[in-house]
């Protein structure tokens, strides 16, 4: 099914890091969906996860810490032919970038957001992140984190997201299937991907996740919001994987009058006489 292969490059990650599998699955998903690497734009902020675009042959935009989403949605607005995929850490996405997270859900631009959630700030060497378990001890949270952990899935649903899922880097087959669904979803889609950080997170390790995750079964109704919110609150001894919530929503491009025609903004031509006309209005 793959039209063209994506190349990967040497990484700066620690051997054994969960990011490797995510990179591999991203490549596989894009290939299986038949994406042309030259029409794919990978966007990220700053962090270990945010290096992902550096390691795959596609267009890439590694911007500011926390600011991947505004750049990503605007690139999509400018050129809707691009398949825009954001890969970034949970610190980047929910911490520094929290305001863009909740408000871009409201915009519903058709991009895909893969959050590599290692429940820790990796690149800055191990401080608590928004999703760190309460009690997590670090060099900054010396007495253990005392904040209520951020629940990305529940908040995404509450903010109105139309596609909200969880996956695990240690379950690549399932991850690929979720990634593909997310990329195909027309609108903003979020996949929170559990990703062990072997260097700094000694709590939420590979086996921590492995022992807790389970896949949602067919009986689960991902279209019901209340069910989904209840399920999204489950994060402890049992951690559900899969599409937690989905809903068809009109996307930004469908609602925006300038974009609704389907012609990419970059290709739209302005009528030459418009300025003359507008000047007339001031006379």
């Amino acid at each position: 099914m793959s039209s063209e292969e994506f190349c990967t490059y040497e990484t700066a990650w620690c051997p054994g890091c969960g990011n490797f599998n995510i990179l591999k699955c991203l490549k596989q998903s894009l290939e299986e969906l038949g994406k042309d690497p030259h029409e794919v734009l990978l966007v990220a902020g700053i962090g270990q996860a945010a290096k992902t675009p550096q390691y795959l042959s596609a267009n890439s935009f590694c911007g500011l810490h926390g600011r991947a989403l505004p750049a990503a949605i605007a690139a999509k607005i400018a050129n809707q032919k691009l398949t825009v995929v954001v890969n970034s850490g949970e610190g980047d996405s929910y911490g520094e970038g929290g305001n863009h997270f909740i408000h871009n859900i409201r915009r519903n631009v058709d991009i895909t957001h893969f959050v590599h959630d290692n429940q820790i700030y990796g690149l800055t060497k191990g401080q608590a992140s928004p999703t760190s378990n309460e009690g997590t001890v670090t060099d900054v949270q010396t007495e253990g984190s005392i904040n209520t952990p951020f629940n990305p899935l529940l908040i995404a649903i509450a903010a109105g997201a139309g596609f909200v899922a969880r996956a695990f880097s240690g379950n690549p087959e399932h991850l690929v299937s979720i990634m593909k669904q997310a990329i195909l979803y027309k609108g903003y889609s979020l996949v929170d991907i559990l990703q062990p950080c072997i260097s700094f997170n000694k709590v939420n390790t590979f086996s921590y996740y492995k022992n807790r995750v389970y896949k949602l079964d067919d009986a689960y109704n991902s279209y019901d919001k209340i069910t989904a919110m209840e399920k999204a609150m489950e994060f402890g001894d049992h951690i559900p994987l899969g599409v937690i919530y989905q809903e068809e929503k009109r996307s930004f491009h469908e609602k925006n009058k300038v974009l609704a025609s389907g012609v990419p903004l970059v290709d739209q031509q302005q009528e030459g006489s418009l300025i003359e006309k507008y000047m007339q209005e001031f006379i």
Partner: protein
Amino acid sequence: MYNILIGGAAGQGVDTTCSILEKLLKQSGYHVFSVKDLMSRVRGGHNFTLIRFGSEAMASHSYILDGIVAFNQETVELHRHELKPDGFILCDSQLSVEGKDVIKIDMNAIAKKLGNPKVAGSILIGAILKIFGETLDHSRTVFAGAVKPEYLAINLQAVEIGYDSTAKQHAHNGGAYGAWMLLTGNQALALGAMAAGLKFYSAYPMSPSTSIMEYLAGKMTEAGIVVEQAEDEIAAINMAIGASFAGARAMTGTSGGGFCLMVEALGLSGMAEIPMVVADIQRPGPVTGLPTRTEQSDLNFAISAAHGEFPRMVIALKNHADAFYQTIRAFHMAEKYQIPVIILSDQYLADSSATVEPFDVRNSQVYRANDVLTDGEYLRYRLNGEAVSPRLLPGTSKGFVSADSDEHDERGRIIESAEMRVQMMDKRLSKLKKLEAELKEPEFIGDDSYDTLLIGWGSTYGPIKEAITILNHQTIHHFSALVFGDVYPLPVKRLNEKVVQAKQIINVEQNATGQIAKLIREQTGIMCTSSILKYDGRQISGEQIAAQVLKGGE
């Protein structure tokens, strides 16, 4: 030349009255210049507009009044001392204002009787037209463009009542400006952005920049511009950068407080070499300051904003025509050099209305990146010995386009190498040298017989220009001025030439610390001998500059 002040509480309709009156005066041939003085509130308080009109072009406002039109008592109390000896006061009969200069109309009662208290302003318009010897010829067309059809008749009736209820005091002087435009600085700026091919505008509301977004939003569907209100200014600028990266010409606008939040991303534009235009419409700081007033105090900040070192250009707008043409040029320079360009305007220019010749849009060519078509590897940051690498848009060919905020190699991948770092820094910073060759020298006002040189930048252009005229009429000394538009990099050629014969150099700025004077000294060693600084949120006028220069003791 005439100058009137129309004042009242917010919500009383001063704004609508003024904008209609201005247009009527302009239609009848006058050159019109009007400026707003607003408080930061929606209702109540005291707001006023100064409307100046004459048969010759004028560059700014004046505080010497031929007439006061008062919607409320306060207007009279606050401004009566600014009235010329033969000036008039026009107001409602209910106000307790006395004097032989006072013309009272029972406007509120009449308006009520007509069936709509809101037409009181139109009664005033009629009276003013009469006082200045105007006809009612343009009323129908101008009102038709300003009010809803169902309100047209009643307004025209009100104008006529006002017209008939007072007497002519001044002659119609005429003028040849009927076919020129009357527009605000922000409207001119927005038009310039459209003429430059703007496709994407993202901003967060902030006075006095919001009217740019509003103007563009009014045209967006027809003009094919996505106008997106961001959740905050950080989003606004990162959106603009993302859109520009993908090929849509993009801009954001804000005022100083919002600009603060944008500076990190300004560096991103510089580092990743993505063209971007930011308009900072200044207002008095620090922080919230005086949100509806004017100041020029973001200059030093704009030229050094953001950590680290990268090329940028800063253009200050001098007047309404500049707002159009320099905005186009901002896009041109941003695209040509793949840099951020900051436009500095201010509330005075943004909100004031001026009469401007229709713009020549044939001059609106903006540089377009060569599309590099490649089947091989595309190097976004090619070190070809040139400052600017050929630009490719993502998705348009078989090359991969990368942008990175980390230091990177030619492909745009993160590096740690000391050598590559230096090469990339040198490449980026060499753009500043290139820019220097394209700078616009400051405008020289006056003739070559000066001994005193005034120096200004941006919107003090108009007041300084008037001040030079006043000064050269009033004294035996000779005055000239240099007013900068391009402020960073600072063009120094004309400055170095002109200071030679100046015995005095006076910087005139709408700030407290003399920001252009500092920059000039840093760049040239030239020191201003004295300063005229105003930082109370009200724009200095030509006569105020002249008075201060003279008081400053020649």
